[in-house]
């Protein structure tokens, strides 16, 4: 097979301003976290979907995201050991591996990606958005840390709409529960103007992120909206939304991407810029992190670019129009949580994916089904058939796991992908979809 990436050393890639900036931001963040016991900073653990970073910052709390820690453990190939550790301690082999990776990591001394111990949380902000496992996960952490736990429920958008009752319920939870408890834990009084300021900052970064994501409508696409997209969403889905750092990062990123569009360049991969775009895909489902580079390589080696993905919407569906709005701060936070991808009904997911295929002129849909994750996986086979039916484009299904290396079979995935690309070719040449 002919590699379609031009040979350029990876070091050159790292010189991108946005990448350097993100690296520095992440390092500084983990440093803030691990030095919390010395600095006296208080730590709030919370989840990515529906995360309330702007609110957390209002109380000078440092945001710790166990999901991101699990991803980091996956990327650094440590999650496998952590998961086994949790299973030895009595956790079932059947359940979400993010939880087990986190618990195993805790049992092994809670060492973060910077090699230093992560602090105990002072508060668990259980934002229950789009996944029931979150409930159990933080009950499990609460059992260990015995710290205050704030529960914040986001009603499910089952009928494709947000009702007044949903918003009222959430705003009331903010006012009567979340904010008073955060005040108590932090000793900082809540200032709504401070929140407004952060929200305004968020909206700026969100505009630029959307511009970057939608740049994939170009041909060739200057970005990979799944593998690359995961890096792009990092700051805004994590502990940086609402900071000037994030605004700046997305400004840089936007400029870089615009530049690539101008030059007609494809995405940057770990092996350098992609030379030729042969296939444009929409991907549904989270990636595999334990073999992330290997997984990505299977795409770029074949000239396949992901032009849109649902996973990059778990922390917000900005491309569908949502922006944090300082003029109605608490309502806006509520709407944000309600809108995240995993809080959307199956029909909404199907519509979103079908629209992506049409709007980004993709060749088809690829689903990466995650053994661990019922929130994503239950229903994906219907999603696949329905999107295929609506768009007339072929779809394919692969199965891996987020952070459990036992469920990543490179040979299987590669086979599936190769036959999928053949299917796309056949479809293009008018031969129909091979069985």
């Amino acid at each position, binding site marked *: 097979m002919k590699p379609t990436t031009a040979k350029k050393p990876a070091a050159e890639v790292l010189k991108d301003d946005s990448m350097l900036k993100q690296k520095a931001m992440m390092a500084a963040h983990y440093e803030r976290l691990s030095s919390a016991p010395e600095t006296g900073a208080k730590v709030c653990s919370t989840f990515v979907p529906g995360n309330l970073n702007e609110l957390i910052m209002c109380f000078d709390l440092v945001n710790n995201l166990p999901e991101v820690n699990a991803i980091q453990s996956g990327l650094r190939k440590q999650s496998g050991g952590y998961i086994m550790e949790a299973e030895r301690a009595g956790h079932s082999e059947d359940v979400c591996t993010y939880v087990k990776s986190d618990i195993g990591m805790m049992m092994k001394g809670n060492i973060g990606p910077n090699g230093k111990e992560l602090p105990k949380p002072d508060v668990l902000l259980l934002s229950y958005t789009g996944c029931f496992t979150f409930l159990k996960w933080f009950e499990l952490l609460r059992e260990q840390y*015995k710290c205050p736990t704030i529960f914040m429920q986001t009603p499910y958008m089952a009928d494709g709409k947000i009702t007044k009752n949903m918003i009222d319920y959430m705003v009331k939870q903010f006012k009567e529960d979340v904010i008073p408890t955060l005040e108590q834990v932090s000793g900082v009084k809540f200032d709504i103007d401070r929140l407004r300021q952060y929200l305004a900052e968020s909206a700026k970064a969100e505009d630029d992120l959307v511009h970057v994501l939608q740049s994939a409508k170009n041909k060739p696409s200057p970005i990979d909206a799944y593998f690359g997209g995961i890096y792009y969403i990092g700051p805004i889905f994590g502990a940086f939304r609402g900071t000037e750092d994030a605004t700046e990062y997305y400004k840089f990123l936007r400029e870089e991407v615009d530049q690539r569009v101008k030059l007609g360049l494809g995405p940057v991969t770990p092996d350098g810029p992609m030379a030729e775009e042969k296939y444009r895909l929409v991907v549904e489902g989270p990636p595999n992190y334990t073999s992330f580079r290997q997984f990505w390589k299977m795409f770029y080696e074949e000239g396949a670019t992901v032009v849109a993905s649902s996973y990059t919407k778990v922390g917000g569906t900005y491309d569908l129009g949502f922006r944090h709005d300082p003029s109605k701060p608490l309502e806006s936070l509520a709407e944000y949580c309600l809108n995240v991808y995993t809080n959307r*009904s199956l029909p909404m997911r199907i519509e979103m994916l079908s629209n992506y295929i049409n709007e980004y002129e993709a060749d088809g849909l690829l689903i990466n089904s995650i053994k661990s994750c019922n929130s994503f996986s239950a229903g994906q086979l219907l999603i696949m058939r329905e999107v295929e039916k609506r768009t007339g484009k072929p779809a394919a299904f692969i199965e891996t796991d987020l952070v459990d290396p036992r469920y990543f079979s490179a040979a299987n995935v590669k086979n599936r992908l190769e036959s999928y690309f053949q299917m796309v070719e056949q479809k293009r040449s008018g031969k129909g979809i091979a069985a």
Partner: protein
Amino acid sequence: MTEKTVSEIVSRCEALYEDLYFNAAREWKAAKPGRKVIGFMPLYVPRELIHAAGMLPLGIMGGGDNLEVIHGDAYYQSYICRIPRSTIELGVSGRLDFVDGMLFPSICDVIRNLSGMWKMLFPDVYSKYFDVPQTYRDEIGGEFYTNEMREFLHDLEGIAGRKITDDDIRASIAVYNENRRAIAELYALRQSQPWNAPASEAYLVLRAGLVLPVEEHTQLVRDYVAAASAEQRPVKDNSRVVLTGMFCEQPPLNLIKSLELSGCYVVNDDFVLVSRWLMDDVPTEGDPVHNLSQAFLHRSMSTAAKYEPNEAEKGQFLVRQVRDANAEGVIFASTSFCDPALLDRPMMQNVLKAADVPFIAFKYAENSGQMQPIREQAGTFVDSIKLWSAA
């Protein structure tokens, strides 16, 4: 009037349980023009509201071990539990074609997503994800829940083509209070004379409540309690256990029988929780929707699918069940791939360890066939309980 025998009652319940075409509910519907049936899945829905609309709430608990799943597997990967696929099978095979609406309670991500699949697969049937609060303060979760119930009532009025008054709801609450009392008597009998009311029979009696009109079911439960307490079955040297984890996908009947055969008296459990979810009478005075909400917030059962806001209270519900039923141990029987049950289990086990309550754990699926390992495990457990208590 001749009294019904235990075996007559149990055979009737067994026939209802095995009937995957739900003929009892079909007949109820056909008996009068305009009657409607609203299906619901585990865990809990306020059946009082459906009843108040003059409709039959029909509990759908998957397909069990008798249903051949032909289409359902095409909808789910192997690592997802069985109840959604067998429920889809019931739907696409036409077994639910008489059902006028389906409710998908907020229990886990699988059922949640199934609610959307149902909308896609059966676009002409009313279907609703029934959201409930996981926060229990009156002015927060209570208000949300009351409004959700009012929205649901509004939908029901649309289907029924008539208004549902507060008096209608109060009357239905009274009828369900009666049912809850009868079921409480059944549990009391199981605790005082477990040899006379085995779990496998009680389970069938409870299951009948999912398909029969509630008034008829209350009578059936009472008949069973009367007949079973009059029996003189041999008392065995069994161990008293609480069985937990079966709140959603159902165990094969054989599994319950196997536990009994291996020496267990199941003196409490989480079978068919909808029928015991509200723990006391719901007041029939005042605002009925508010009353239902209050009962849900403050006097409902605890289970893995529910958030426990108070760390110190975590697991205590189960410990109390053990103490109140004078049980000697707990059996965790969880559905394979069930995140709520399986993630909850280690926490519950820690609480039991601290309370000095022995336990065992295993997994099952609704179509599990091989009972030998479970029987052996339960048998060993019973032996160890006896040894321990003899020591």
